[in-house]
């Protein structure tokens, strides 16, 4: 009935054996992304957002492993691919933008060499001149003035903002359909942050790509993303359109997170307690101990992801036993 989404992540479980037991860092995570769509993955440290994108990029290393689920990109399951195939997909179809651009760029190679290496690795033989031409075009497209000069220089000569633009250009040089960005602006100054986000948004929406943006910054999600995936303790607890989730959060954790943003003149609302250890996973809902809406059922029965605000017309999902109307009722979150 509907065209398949570009990215469809279904029930992915990634775990590793620790000395104290099996840790499910990614616990049955499902979400999807369309073309021309920016999807934000938010949550606090330890919620599994980074592990999730590592799982879908095939970057989970032993002792960790992906034990279940599928990651469908254009209908192809990335988790069934060999290491060699997945390496090919990274770059060809998925571009990756890391938090620290200086860690992503090789300090001993000139920038043009790094473009050359990427192109050669994926397209086989390629002439210096043609890769150079493509690199210049791409650097111009990401708003770098004087790309020729940049190409002949090294990463350490760049400012943080420029280096991140170069990383984005490298991620886009093979024209991938999906961009995965892990905290792409966290290491940058605020005045640079907007420029980078604008650039990513243009490259996604205008050019028909799809972008997964992992961040802890709710402002970034609120102002730039179309949809949001909220994660807690390795699970997705809520998904939906940003404009709806942020205005009417259906999960108590989402609500608490939004209320944690400090604002002038209001007493800051705090979520007491902390994320439970993924080893001693509580029997019911992982958020129960911190939840103000907690009912008996929460401690006994693990909630499933279910549609919320079903009458609303759009796709909202929430993992909570409590009625979403009740959760968002007094969620005059932002005033």
């Amino acid at each position, binding site marked *: 009935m509907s065209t398949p989404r570009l990215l469809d992540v279904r029930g992915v479980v990634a775990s590793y054996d620790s000395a104290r037991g099996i840790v499910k860092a990614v616990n049955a995570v499902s979400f999807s992304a369309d073309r021309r769509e920016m999807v934000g993955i938010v949550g*606090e*440290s330890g919620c599994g957002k980074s592990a999730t994108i590592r799982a879908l990029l095939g970057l989970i290393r032993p002792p960790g492993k992906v034990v279940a689920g599928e990651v469908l990109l254009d209908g192809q399951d990335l988790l069934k691919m060999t290491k060699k195939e997945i390496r090919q997909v990274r770059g060809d179809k998925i571009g990756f933008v890391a938090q620290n651009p200086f860690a992503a760029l090789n300090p001993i190679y000139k920038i043009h060499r790094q473009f050359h290496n990427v192109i050669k690795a994926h397209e086989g033989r390629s002439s210096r001149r043609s890769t150079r031409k493509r690199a210049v075009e791409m650097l111009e497209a990401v*708003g770098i003035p004087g790309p020729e000069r940049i190409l002949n220089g090294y990463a350490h000569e760049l*400012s943080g*903002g*420029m280096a991140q633009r170069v990383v984005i250009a490298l991620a886009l040089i093979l024209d991938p359909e999906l961009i995965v960005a892990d905290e792409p602006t966290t290491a940058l*100054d*605020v*005045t*640079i*942050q*907007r*420029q980078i*986000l*604008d*650039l990513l*948004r243009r490259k996604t*929406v205008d050019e028909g790509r799809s972008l997964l943006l992992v961040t*802890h*910054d*709710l*402002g*970034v*999600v*609120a*102002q*730039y993303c*179309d949809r949001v995936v909220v994660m807690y303790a390795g699970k997705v607890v809520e998904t939906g359109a*940003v*404009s709806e989730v*942020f*205005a009417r959060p259906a999960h108590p954790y989402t609500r*608490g*997170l*939004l*209320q*944690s*943003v*400090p*604002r*002038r003149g209001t*007493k*800051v*609302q*705090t*979520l*007491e307690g*902390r994320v439970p250890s993924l080893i001693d996973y509580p029997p019911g809902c992982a958020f129960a101990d911190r939840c103000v809406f907690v009912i008996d059922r929460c401690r006994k029965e693990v909630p499933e992801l279910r549609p919320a605000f079903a009458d609303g017309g759009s796709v909202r999902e929430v993992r909570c036993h409590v009625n979403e109307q009740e959760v968002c009722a007094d969620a005059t*979150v*932002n005033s």
Partner: protein
Amino acid sequence: MPLLTVEGLTKSFPRTGRGTVHAVNDVSLEIDRGETLALIGESGSGKSTIGRLILRLIEPDAGTIKIDGTDLLTLSNSELRAMRAKMQVVFQEPYESLNPKMRVGDIVAEPLEIHEPSLSRADLRDRVRATLEEVGLNADQAERLPRGLSGGQQQRVGIARALITRPALVVLDEPTSSLDLSVQAQILEILHDLQETHGLSYLYISHDLSTVSYLAHRVAVLYLGQIREQGPLEAVVQNPQDPYTQALLAAFLDSDVSVSPSRLRMLSGEIPDPTQLPEGCFLYGRCPLRMDKCRSDPSVLRVLGSKHYGRCIRAPLNDDDWNIVADSNRTVGDRPG
């Protein structure tokens, strides 16, 4: 009389290789009792250096620093150490600022051991316990090593250590920037409550507008080690009168989806090399509103309103000034739909 008066604070560091980094350039500020002054700016603006200079953890090249009328720079080493009971600091890195080999209780007790050596063991323990409880830790945690605590708990230990000698001034150097949002909220609440109960004065160093607007009474905006604009929070945030402040505020992304992003106000280029300070107005090279006069005239803080000071000679600014350039900008962050 204000609790803290800083005048003409200046500091430069020799840079290995060549040149001198002019980190702090003629900074003057005041903080009243029970008041929070926020220093905001981007990395390299000199905000953390100012915090350290005020505590004399680094020696300034020039300027005066007076706390409660005492000129810190005239104090001998031992007088300065005694003074430290009154002025404290909480650092950005919760774990790194705690000695990994010391127990939490000993870390919090140390300032008292130094400043009130006559205290009996029992009194010392009671004070430690009371202070731990005040920051939301329980007394059992005194026996733990810092490694065994979460980031938020570690930062509470840092706050308890800063607080136990009942200081008048606490420098908060980005105390929540490495913490998760929900933990940040807990720490901010503690800081806010402590200020109310003890009448503490804070110098709050941050780059995050949301926490600044929560804690601060007044704001000073730093650029290249210089205060661009200073004034009451409302005045600076709602009516910024410096192109840099305006650009900085416009970059802020509100988590409230009903607030549409403000039009991006971009300064051209990036922060210049602090080894070579620009002539005239420091912002000249990047400012879309610049005039020839900006380069030739000395850049000074002028009175713009009640307790509101700014450097821009074109102030009061009006929005139309920016539109000329904003529209010609290639990046405008409007979210479709």
